[in-house]
């Protein structure tokens, strides 16, 4: 009683996979290598090894104090559920580290200290703030910096948005001013 059994030959693709699967999987180890340059660039940016931000705006004098302002990334505002956001970094001058209580950033002149805009958080040597940029912002708008001292004093200064972030102005111009 011989029972004939027919063995199906494996498909060429399956044979190839069986023969080379371990070698092909080793290639997966190469995938992270492609992300390494971006990873190290980001690590240097967030540690501060590559400066305050991708693009340094320069020193801004605010009354008796001053701060160094930088764009975290030299790019247009990033979308967020709360509207487009642009990240800035700042470092207080050495003499004012102990005198300044809070630093705020806003597009347009603040109506009051309560509405002075977003607050910078972090160490005075490297603070960060995410500034909402309304889509209807005029490209010739001004960026206002408000500083509050521990003595209760308040100082304000402004710089053109085109100086603070040319990428943001280019983005606004491209969008067109919305009503």
């Amino acid at each position, binding site marked *: 009683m011989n029972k004939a059994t027919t063995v199906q030959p494996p498909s060429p693709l399956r044979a190839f*996979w069986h023969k080379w*699967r371990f070698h092909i*999987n080793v290639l*997966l180890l190469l995938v992270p290598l492609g*992300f390494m340059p971006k990873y190290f660039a980001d690590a240097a940016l967030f540690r501060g090894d590559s400066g305050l931000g991708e693009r340094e705006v320069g020193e801004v004098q605010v009354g008796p104090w001053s701060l160094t302002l930088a764009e975290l990334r030299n790019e247009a505002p*990033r979308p*967020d*559920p*709360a*509207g487009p*956001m642009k990240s800035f970094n700042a470092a207080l001058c050495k003499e004012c580290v102990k005198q300044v209580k*809070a630093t*705020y950033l806003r597009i347009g002149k603040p*109506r*009051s200290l*309560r*509405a*002075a*805009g*977003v*607050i*910078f*958080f972090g160490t005075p040597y490297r603070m960060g*703030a*995410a500034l*909402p940029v309304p889509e209807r912002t005029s490209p010739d708008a001004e960026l206002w910096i408000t500083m509050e001292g521990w003595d209760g004093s308040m100082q304000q200064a402004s710089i053109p948005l085109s100086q603070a972030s040319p990428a943001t102005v280019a983005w606004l111009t491209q969008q067109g001013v919305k009503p």
Partner: protein
Amino acid sequence: MTLIRLTRACAVLILCAGASTQALAHNPMCECKEIPGEQIQCTGGFSDGSGAPGVTLDVIGYDETILVPGKLGADSTLTFKKPSAEFYVLFDAGPGHVVEIDQADIQAQ
């Protein structure tokens, strides 16, 4: 089978890598609209999806007088009568965590 599993695992890993770069900030948000009866309803919240019950929301005149001092209710909204004077709405979740809405930006019904 193994190939399919491997592909799926890779897809999940790549998706996770993409999601991890998203900022985990929660920015304040506020929206106001006009509702029938000369009233304005404002809804506050944060960009991480959380609500803002009990957060201060003041209606302030252009001369900086507080016209309606208020706090958002349990449903994160506040309804108030439209002031006759020029005003703006200030959602105030703490220093530097504010949203200003000018009367001109409040959508009519």
